[in-house]
């Protein structure tokens, strides 16, 4: 029997500086009715391009150069434009990564829901309206009767993502292409959307192509998984099989990601007196609403404190207060027992030197017009006033320390990969010879394998140099890997803090519990089990 969707030997090329280079390199796939196929890979794997190609759609600057796509007996690439248009939205639908950008800001949600069925002449607006409410209810959207009459900007991110799933379901398509639908969401919201997607595709027996970089997420939902890399197929198998017995080395690496754990507990000396103390700090951007309330934190030498929270929890704001970018409304910051002036401009150069920062986006954290020599060299001459020769020598030492070749000294950031750039950021921080490095989501913009290498490097540097880290992250896997202590934040307050083992094993706070349990695990039954336990509890 023929499959619902068959792609054979598909080659898609993208145009770079007038040259056509392959993005998808002769990939074949089959999708049966009601089946969920997971496409997984790191950035540049070609998974989104392949997903869109299933709708016979390519973005500007891409083209399908060979291969066949047969959907339910129809050779999509041979159809004319009009025939393809009739299939899109009705028989194959799409769910994009960013619902906020993909909903038209000028129209209400329900108008956009009804547009597909009405325009394709499947039903009138009134019927579509009724069905929308039904679908909204099935997707567990709050107030399903009225939420559709809101504009996209009036709905939260997780709800908007579900409204987009609803929109894709409007014509009861045979296939939905999900393109990283949960990547932009917080973990606790991700669960809700993931559960909603799983639920609705089951109810209507819809086939799906689920694209993500996160193996643990796709494991919850997919029947089959295809691992892609640089436009090539690495491995394909049943979801359970691929998790249990991966054949390829690359798949094994992806599976073992997040398995890195800091050895020992509380490496470095555990001094009695904390060298950084945050006391009763409250902060506000407007002067009225507090984004931080009464924060107390202590940092000890050679230790790592992980500051965990979801977006809007105030964790990055706390970093701004500590560094002096945002003077607090009340409270104080003590460094080595002495109170620091609240504002950056009033602080001494020596204090600035001891506290360095590494950022989430290595792309924007390095001046693209400075060479590595200037990036790492500037703190050296700025803080220590070293001679040119000494500076050169020290830069080379630092490059060696971060495991980059010496000839990188003459390069611009644009000539480096994401992971290499982040290493340069680390070297720039180390050049100041600091006591504390504040790491703001330093691994979240990187591919998982690269992120893991960075964590290992940071850990090694801590062992060798005894530097302390304040690790700001929303990713609990990172916390588990590198923290000595955990501080959990929610809406500007600390809800729980303590030694890592204690917090992870027996969280006292309900939110911490929910946060910890929401992190997807490499187990296909994890989501179902979790939902069951939560239901039982409720």
């Amino acid at each position, binding site marked *: 029997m023929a499959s619902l969707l068959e792609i054979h030997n598909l080659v898609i090329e993208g145009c770079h500086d007038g040259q056509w280079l392959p993005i998808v390199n002769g990939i074949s796939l089959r999708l049966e009715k009601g089946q969920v196929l997971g496409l997984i890979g790191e950035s540049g794997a070609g998974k989104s391009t392949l997903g*869109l190609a299933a*709708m016979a*759609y390519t*973005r500007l600057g891409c083209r399908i150069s060979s291969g066949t796509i047969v959907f339910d007996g129809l050779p999509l690439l041979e159809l004319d434009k009009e025939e393809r*248009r*009739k*299939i*899109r*939205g*009705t028989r194959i*639908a*799409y769910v*994009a990564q*960013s619902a906020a*950008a*993909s*909903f*038209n*800001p*000028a*129209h209400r949600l329900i108008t956009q829901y009804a*547009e*597909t069925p009405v*325009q*394709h002449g499947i039903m009138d607006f009134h019927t579509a309206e009724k069905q929308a409410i039904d679908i909204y209810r099935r997707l567990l959207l709050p107030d399903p009767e009225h939420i559709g009459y*809101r*504009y996209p*900007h*009036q709905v939260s991110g997780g709800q908007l993502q579900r409204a987009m799933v609803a*929109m894709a379901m409007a014509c009861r398509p045979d296939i939905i292409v999900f393109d990283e639908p949960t990547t932009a969401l917080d973990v606790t919201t991700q669960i809700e959307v993931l559960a909603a997607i799983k639920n609705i595709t089951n109810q209507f027996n819809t086939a799906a192509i689920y694209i993500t970089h996160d193996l643990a997420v796709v494991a919850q939902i997919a029947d089959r998984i295809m691992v892609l890399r640089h436009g090539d197929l690495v491995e394909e198998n049943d979801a359970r099989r691929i998790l249990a017995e991966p054949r390829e080395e690359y798949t094994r690496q992806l599976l073992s990601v997040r398995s890195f754990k800091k050895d020992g507990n509380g490496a470095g000396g555990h001094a009695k007196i904390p060298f950084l103390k945050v006391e009763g700090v409250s902060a506000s951007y407007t002067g009225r609403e507090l984004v931080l309330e009464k924060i107390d934190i202590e940092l000890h030498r050679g230790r790592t404190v992980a500051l965990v929270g979801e977006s809007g929890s105030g964790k990055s704001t706390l970093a701004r207060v500590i560094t002096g970018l945002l003077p607090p409304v009340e409270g104080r910051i003590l460094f080595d027992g002495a109170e620091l002036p609240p504002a950056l401009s009033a602080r001494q150069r020596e204090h600035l030197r001891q506290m360095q920062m590494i950022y989430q986006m290595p792309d924007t954290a390095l001046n693209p017009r400075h060479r590595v020599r200037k990036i790492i060299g500037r703190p050296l001459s700025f803080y220590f006033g070293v001679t040119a020769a000494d500076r050169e020598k020290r830069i080379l030492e630092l490059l060696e320390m971060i495991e980059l070749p010496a000839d990188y000294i003459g390069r611009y950031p644009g000539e480096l990969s994401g992971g290499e750039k982040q290493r340069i950021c680390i070297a720039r921080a180390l050049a100041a010879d600091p006591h504390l490095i504040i790491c703001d989501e330093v691994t979240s913009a990187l591919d998982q394998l690269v992120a893991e290498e960075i964590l290992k490097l940071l850990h090694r540097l801590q062992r060798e140099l005894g530097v302390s880290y304040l690790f700001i992250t929303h990713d609990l896997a990172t916390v588990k890997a590198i923290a000595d202590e955990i501080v959990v934040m929610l809406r500007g307050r600390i809800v729980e803090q303590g030694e890592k083992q204690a917090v992870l094993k027996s969280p006292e706070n309900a939110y911490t519990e929910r946060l910890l349990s929401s992190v997807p695990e490499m187990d296909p039954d994890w989501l179902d089990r979790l939902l069951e336990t939560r239901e039982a509890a409720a």
Partner: protein
Amino acid sequence: MSPLITLVLKRVGLGVLTLWVISVLIFVGVELLPGDLAEEILGQNATPETVAAFRRELKLDLPPHARYLAWLGGLTEGDLGNSLANGRPIAELIGWRFANTLFLAASTAVVAVPISIFLGILAALYRNSLFDRLISMATLSTISFPDFFVAYILIALLSVQLLLFPSVSNINPQMSLLEKLYAIVLPCLTLTLVVVAHMMRQTRAAIINILSSPFIEMAHLKGLRRARVVVRHAFPNALSPVINVVALNLAYLVAGVVIVEVVFAYPGMGQLLVDSVTKRDIPVVQASGLIFAATYVTLNLLADVFSIISNPRLRAPR
């Protein structure tokens, strides 16, 4: 009060404030003249009578703030003072010239706005096609031309060579609308060519910006017709930037009119301003400057208000 109304009121308030500051600036600007204003402007060999008339006209015998208040008070009652050059009331001088300028600008707008929006949208939809490139080369050249170059080319072609239209647009109040329209064909055409080039390029840029949004890709992936994607999805979001483009160009038109009026000897505000500047007829310069500024500020204000109103985030707050 809805935030929309608050925002609009705020913007209108800002406009009024700007106008007030401008009136102060115009007044103080003259105040700052070095030396004896009368002699400086009238020259060494001015007769004592003209100097006295000048002093009286500018009320130089009063203290500055009283003079400003008197001037502003006169303005609000429509009394703009008298011209130094011929002693006639400025309101009389300006009245029908202002109407003429608005007539020319409005005629141009009626022709130019639809053309440029239409061409702009077409160029954006068929971007990088031959049509788009031709249009883009043509507009680029037009933008590079000085206004008077366009005007003289048109005169050379349509007036001198083909004898189709008059090269001088000297209209008077006795003329019928049709006669007036015939008289202003060339200045109108000149302004249209210049404004269309600017407006079309900006419209094209605004539409292209919208067309590259993810929600447009989504609309295509919903299998909607191309026309519907443009009309229902791109247009409502492009409305605000396009309205802005139109208003800014109308404001530009108000100033661009100066050159064209001089070329075609059209009896409008622009010519009056240039004449008065040459004659250093300060009260007339002040009054016409203020009127130009007021028109300009009003158009910019309208643009902002429209773009506030057409923003769904402000129309329907959380």
